[in-house]
């Protein structure tokens, strides 16, 4: 029987000190749940605790590193420099993770020195976030660090030396707000054979993405690019692509050009989750959109697309995807509002919906609709061809769109179990 153990009120002085006798890795674990500052402070507790913190595997220097926030920035910066110097010097043992993310750390070349020290200590995870100011140029010593397994950079400029051989053990790469040249990018990806996760957000310096990564499983990208293609990425299972650039589709130039959609899916046979964000669907819609992909995406179970309902090519592309995904269970469609200056393909009405497949959709979410004909046609199509639908959530772009509600009520449903939830925006 378990009973609550309560410490007796009259604690004798001879209570054993069990905490200090715990094995080292357990104490490391306890200290790792504390912010670094508190962990280092344990060095004044007793003689045994003097250097227990010094084997902490993860060193995280962030805004919690010092107490007072209201001082002037250079003061805080100097303190932070001293703290990091002290901690790095006093630390013993292997450093697993180093994270530096402090809002006042700008224009600090000490990072070069610390990077060299960490490279020598075989750091595995390196996270550097420069909050403000110019892109920080990553020192060449970091590019020689072969122990890296996870590299995360924010607001940095990457220019590896000519001796750069790649990161042989790198499994996860996260670059956000970075600048690197086209060839640097390609070299970086292809020279990291173990790469499994790649995140790229808001990059500049290159516009053509050719991803050659045999072990890549997770790919998340958001930025402005012109072209994207995959090579040798048969393991890729989670893909999220956001093209933040609304480009003019020049009809003349692109007539007869190969379908981007086809090109895109050639090397993604096993994709499980796909997110097509911002203007990427427009990009995919370029070229002759087939009715169905030559090879169906049998593993695709989750699809999220941002679509302009008034552009017929985009709707065709979406329908092609739906036809080619026999096992799709979850669908999310987010409406992208029409933009006045950009030319689109006008909606052709219900002719779009020919040869509709029976879908296995269970959960559908439609967001940002206002009750226009193309939208209603799409919703009606989904309801008619999803016999196992369990729930459809419709969120209008503004409240009080009663016409939409009326139509939704009217639509025939193939699934007897389907719930339609009309989510009013607050």
């Amino acid at each position: 029987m378990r009973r609550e153990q309560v410490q007796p009120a009259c604690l004798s002085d001879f209570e054993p000190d069990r905490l200090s006798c715990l094995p080292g890795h357990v104490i490391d674990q306890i200290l790792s749940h504390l912010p670094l500052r508190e962990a280092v402070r344990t060095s004044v507790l007793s003689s045994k605790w003097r250097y227990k913190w010094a084997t902490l595997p993860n060193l995280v220097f962030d805004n919690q590193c010092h107490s007072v926030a209201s001082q002037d920035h250079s003061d805080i910066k100097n303190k932070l420099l001293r703290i990091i110097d002290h901690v790095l010097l006093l630390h013993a043992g292997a450093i697993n993770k180093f994270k530096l993310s402090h809002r006042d750390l700008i224009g600090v070349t000490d990072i070069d020195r610390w990077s060299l020290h960490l490279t020598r200590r075989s750091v595995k995870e390196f996270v550097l976030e420069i909050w403000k100011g110019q892109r920080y140029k990553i020192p060449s010593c970091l590019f020689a660090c072969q122990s890296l397994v996870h590299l995360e950079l924010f607001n940095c400029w990457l220019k590896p030396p000519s001796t750069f051989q790649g990161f042989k053990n790198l499994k996860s790469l996260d670059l956000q707000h970075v600048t690197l040249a086209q060839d640097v990018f390609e070299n970086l990806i292809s020279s990291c054979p173990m790469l499994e996760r790649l995140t790229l957000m808001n990059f500049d310096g290159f516009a053509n993405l050719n991803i050659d990564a045999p072990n890549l499983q997770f790919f998340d990208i958001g930025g402005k690019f012109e072209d994207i293609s995959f090579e040798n990425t048969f393991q890729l299972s989670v893909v999220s692509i956001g093209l933040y650039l609304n480009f003019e589709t020049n009809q003349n130039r692109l007539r007869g050009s190969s379908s981007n959609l086809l090109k895109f899916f050639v090397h993604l046979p096993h994709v499980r989750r796909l997110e097509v964000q911002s203007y990427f669907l427009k990009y995919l819609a370029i070229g002759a959109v087939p009715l169905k992909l030559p090879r169906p995406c049998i593993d695709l179970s989750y699809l999220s697309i941002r679509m302009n309902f008034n552009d017929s090519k985009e709707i065709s592309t979406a329908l092609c995807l739906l036809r080619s995904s026999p096992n799709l269970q979850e669908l999310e469609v987010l409406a992208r509002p029409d933009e006045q200056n950009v030319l689109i393909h006008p909606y052709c009405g219900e002719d779009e919906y020919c040869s509709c497949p029976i879908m296995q959709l269970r959960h559908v979410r439609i967001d940002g609709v206002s009750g226009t004909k193309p939208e209603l046609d799409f919703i009606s199509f989904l309801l008619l061809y999803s016999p196992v639908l369990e729930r459809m959530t419709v969120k209008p772009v503004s409240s009080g769109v009663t016409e939409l509600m009326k139509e939704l009520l009217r639509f025939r449903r193939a699934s007897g179990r389907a719930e339609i939830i009309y989510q009013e925006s607050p």
Partner: protein
Amino acid sequence: MSEIDMAVIKPEMMKSYIWLQTSDGSIQQVEQEIAMFCPLICQEIITKGMGSSKNSAISLPQQVTPSTLSLILDYCRFHQVPGRSNKERKSHDEKFVRMGTNRLCELVSAADSLQLRPLVDLISRALARKIEGRTPEEIREIFHLPDDLTEEEKLEPLKNITDDPRIRLLNRLYAKKRKELKERERLKNVEIEEERVDERSVDDLLTFINGNDRDAKAVKTSKSKKKNRKKKDQQKNSSLKDNTALDKKELNGHDTGDQSSDGNIIGETSNLLYEEDGTFSPKIDFDDGDLDDDGIEPAIREKIDREVADFARRINSDWTERMQDFLTSGRERTSTFSATNGNGYLRRHA
């Protein structure tokens, strides 16, 4: 009847049990599916085929006592049921770790030895919560940590991990105290030489005061009478001695025990007394027969120290004036001592 019994018993018998032996040697039976939640036990069963009978009971690591085992099994019993929601599990875990720190430490040690990582993680977080945001004193109290960093170690200034103004002040105080400690050390070395000389002089002085016919032993008895009173002063004495080395200004900011302005001055004077040993010894024309030069026992030396302090205290602040004279006149002092008896001495400076 027996059939009904069988029907009742049967489902129980269908569950398989395994035998576990805890650190104290006792063996107990535990449902297999619950025990298998612990990787170590699982391994023992699968790879070594242990635990199926009382004789082949799996002997658990020594950190697993019967009480911790029962807690661990409670944990496993709850979590191995698949149908529970995350909320339920979380709420159970929160209640589970509500126990004293000693129990938690025992439990985490046992769970770690059984390789039960989720429980180790849970308890680590609970222990971290008890440490976070507390002062070192509080943490020491909660976990019964000995406060055994030596004065020296504690005085090493905290690496300014925090910029607390209190820490800065503390560092300054520590720096002062360190200086003080160093002075103490230095003085101790000096005093060890001086003490002997002092004893002699005071002893002789008292002998003189109390009459020359008394032998040293009697003198000592008289001292022992005053023992009780002087014991209290002993501590004061040592601290008094120390402060004299420091600037008076520094004493204002200090918390060095019971200090009185009198104490300061007396301390000062007694120090000056000691410093005069050079001039004292050869010139004193006292009866040294009763005193041992070397080999004065520490206990007696202590008593004599107390005597000195008491004597010094009895002489009030006028002593400073007197000492000025001593310093200037040097040898003259010896004659001054010999020239007066106790009363006369006092009267002169009343």
